[in-house]
């Protein structure tokens, strides 16, 4: 990593007006396995690549239910994610206790964003090293919100975060217009198709795809192994998504998340290539524009 004299404290600005500690927190998100969220007119779906550890045989919890109408998937430090999830659960519970109704998701993530922002402005705290895709359904319809350690909260039609998520984002962007009209099964298949692009060539054995859905008359639920397998089989029968090498939009075939030229680890100047112009929202540190 490119170290400099302005990056030891959250409360130190760089001469270019950057907070390096916050940007480094974003790097933690890129270390996590990929996760994808997308929504149709009635449903919001989350798909996540969960790492299996051969020794312990436990799945890393990537998708966390928060309330009956909202759940989230994470990329980054699981310890921080647990804490954030617990906070959201408490807020939803307290809201239900006072108001006998579900917490509007827009307000919940705004509340969360404010909490995350506080950690970027204190000398004695650090930003949470976890990025989240919050999926929910309330009176205003389905939502996908992206929440990052920078405390940016973005309302998305579809989004992917985590390592090698660029190909997922490309897939989502290409098919974005058709999501609104999808039915439940089509939407789930799109999610799985999108995230398959983030599987590296060598670790198909270690990563399993987990799916969760929430929507109209459908409380948030994570699929069982059987349900996951059912949809995986449907998708395998379809054409696989474009291989990275054939993907014209992808630079050199590899996702640029892990490359060293970007973000604060590089020269500091954001590179402009075709992929960056087309992405919906920045998940990297290149948001100085």
């Amino acid at each position: 990593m490119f170290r400099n004299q302005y990056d030891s404290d959250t409360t130190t600005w760089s001469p270019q007006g950057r907070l390096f500690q916050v940007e480094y927190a974003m790097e933690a998100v890129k270390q996590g396995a990929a996760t994808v969220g997308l929504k149709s007119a009635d449903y919001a779906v989350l798909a996540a690549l969960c790492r299996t550890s051969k020794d312990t045989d436990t799945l890393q919890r990537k998708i966390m239910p928060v309330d009956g109408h909202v759940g989230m998937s994470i990329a980054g430090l699981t310890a921080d994610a647990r804490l954030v999830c617990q906070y959201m659960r408490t807020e939803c519970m307290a809201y239900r206790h006072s108001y006998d109704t579900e917490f509007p998701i827009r307000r919940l993530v705004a509340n969360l964003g404010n909490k995350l922002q506080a950690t970027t402005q204190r000398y004695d705290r650090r930003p949470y090293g976890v990025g989240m895709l919050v999926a929910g359904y309330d009176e205003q319809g389905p939502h996908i919100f992206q929440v990052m350690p920078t405390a940016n909260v973005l309302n998305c039609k579809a989004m992917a975060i985590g390592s090698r998520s660029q190909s997922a984002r490309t897939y989502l962007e290409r098919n974005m217009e058709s999501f609104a009209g999808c039915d439940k099964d089509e939407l789930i298949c799109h999610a799985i198709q999108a995230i398959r692009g983030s599987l590296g060539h060598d670790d198909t054995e270690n990563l399993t795809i987990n799916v969760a859905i929430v929507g109209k008359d459908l409380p948030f639920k994570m699929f069982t192994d059987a349900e996951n397998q059912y949809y995986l089989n449907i998708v395998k029968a379809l054409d696989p998504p474009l291989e990275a090498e054939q993907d014209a939009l992808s630079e050199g075939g590899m996702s640029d998340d892990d490359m060293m030229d970007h973000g604060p680890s590089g020269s500091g100047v954001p590179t402009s290539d075709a992929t960056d112009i087309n992405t919906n929202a920045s998940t990297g540190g290149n948001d100085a524009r």
Partner: protein
Amino acid sequence: MLNNYNSLAQPLWQNGPAPGEFYKFTGGQMPVQQLPRELTTVGPYGTKHSTAAITTGSSVLGIRYDEGVMLAADTLVSYGSLARYQNIERVFKINKNILLGGSGDFADIQSIKRNIDQKMIEDQCCDDNIEMKPKSLASWMTRVLYNRRSRMNPLYIDVVVGGVDNEGTPYLANVDLRGRSHEDYVVATGFARHLAIPLVREKKPKDRDFTVVEAAELIRTCMEVLYYRDTRNISQYTVGVCSLNGCGVEGPFQVNENWTFAETIKGY
């Protein structure tokens, strides 16, 4: 009662430590006397009664019909048996979904209404077109009122919360000073609970809700009966109507008085 402190009793001894305590030698700081949290329980400075209402509103009546709710209350705030303020609106429009009818201590009504208005402003500041629903307001009020009563400092109010949700489903509930709430097609506070509710229940068709015409007619009849029989009522009243078509408080109306039946009554 809560502190078990009898302010009239003489202390057992002077200039010494309390039982179980040590001598406080000079040079140390005297501990600051903690005032009781509410100056409403028995304490060293005497007792203040907060369980008596001072200026009160009388009954509120709420009726749910097929498309919305109607709330009616007369425009009197009494000072004991004195008809002190005779032109006070006691039915409030909270937002486009909710009506609130307040009875009981009117200062407490104004206090909690101010709190509710602040909540509505917060809703507006969120700027996301989500307005509070009547069910949520009723739930919130039960939490607040129950908390106050558990601290032995109640808001001495009895309110009717009514309105419609986004789909137009009407909601009508009564929340009282103890934090009790219940939902029904007719709710009332004060004397209306005894006089008006039986009248409305008698007229309720078994298999359907009231129509707006039936509900309005019932309101008229009940306000008339309440004027005849409740000594803390006057003949002027306002009616709040809330449905998907709109929410507002209408009036003031006058009771159609007809005292000729009085000659037929002997005794009570």
